[in-house]
């Protein structure tokens, strides 16, 4: 009955929704480690995340749109992170802030989760130890693009198939190889 005109209206409504959402990001800062300092620097007046409409941290997952996971996540903390993510209302996005949350970083031990994308789907990866504020703002702008398009990540990373994580973040490194390298030297 409506045809192309209906599509035109829905598309325009989605555009408007995306535009509204990307400039009113209510974030939940899940800050566990040293990256938190850089997160605070980004949020303060010198770099001013509020220019992008993302200056308002809500310390309740139910009121937030974007989960900022800032800092190393241990196996003990992992169920808490998953619960916080599950408590957020749709639509929701996840930012992995710092290399520990992206891949586990330089940790390869009994206590650390090797990338939060094994537990919750991640939209934007901001590697760095810690990332510079400029880097964070770059990630934020990329996130805004994603929100504008209405895209959301739903897949988890599978360490066996290596699917679900950007190739740049899949370094060919293992501690076994490192130890062999030391022993052969």
């Amino acid at each position, binding site marked *: 009955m409506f045809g192309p005109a209906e599509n035109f209206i829905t598309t325009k409504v989605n555009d408007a929704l995306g535009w509204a959402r990307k400039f009113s990001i209510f974030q939940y800062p899940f800050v566990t480690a040293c990256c938190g300092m850089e997160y605070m620097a980004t949020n303060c007046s010198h770099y001013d995340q509020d220019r992008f409409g993302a200056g308002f941290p809500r310390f309740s997952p139910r009121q937030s749109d974007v989960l900022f996971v800032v800092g190393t996540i241990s*196996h*003990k903390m992992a169920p808490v992170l998953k619960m916080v993510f599950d408590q957020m209302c749709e639509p929701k996005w996840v930012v992995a802030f710092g290399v520990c949350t992206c891949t586990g970083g330089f940790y390869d031990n*009994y206590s650390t989760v090797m990338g939060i994308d*094994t*537990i919750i789907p991640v939209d934007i990866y901001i590697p760095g130890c810690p990332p510079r504020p400029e880097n964070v703002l770059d990630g934020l702008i990329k996130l805004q693009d994603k929100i504008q398009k209405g895209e959301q990540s739903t897949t988890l990373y*599978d360490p066996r198939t290596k699917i679900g994580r950007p190739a740049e973040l899949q370094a060919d490194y293992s501690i076994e190889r490192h130890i062999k390298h030391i022993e052969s030297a």
Partner: protein
Amino acid sequence: MSLLEKLQGKFAADIIETHAFRGDETAVVRPAALKAVAKFLKDSPEMDFNFLMDLTAVDYLFFAGGRVQKECRFEMVYHFFSLKHNHRIRIKVPVDEKNPEVDTLSDLWPGADWYEREVWDMFGIKFRGHPNLKRILMYEEFQGHALRKDYPFNKRQPLIGPVN
């Protein structure tokens, strides 16, 4: 008269060996005498060690040529400091692998409570008389003790998510 000489005068039979390096004095004490030595260090006015600075353990499993051999795989290390006299001493206690257990010091220094829980968590050394000896860093589901040298470095025990 140095601290070690005073200690040796009182507990000659219980001290395995002593050494001192540039004022850092160390005494290796038999496990059975730990409580008595600690009490003496804390309560006697000339010692008056009112501050337990550190308490940890060492696993000598792969320590080639070490003094601690297979029958005593672990060693407890205590660092004491006296705020009054401004002196410090280190006490070491060898701990058997078959029955890794020593007396708690949490009744003398309340600060020992969490340190001892950490040593139990990471090394699996039990503390006789500890009021609440359970894991402090790892979760209850964790199997084994992570800082033991025979704990596989690549062993993962995630609560949720894949093993990786």
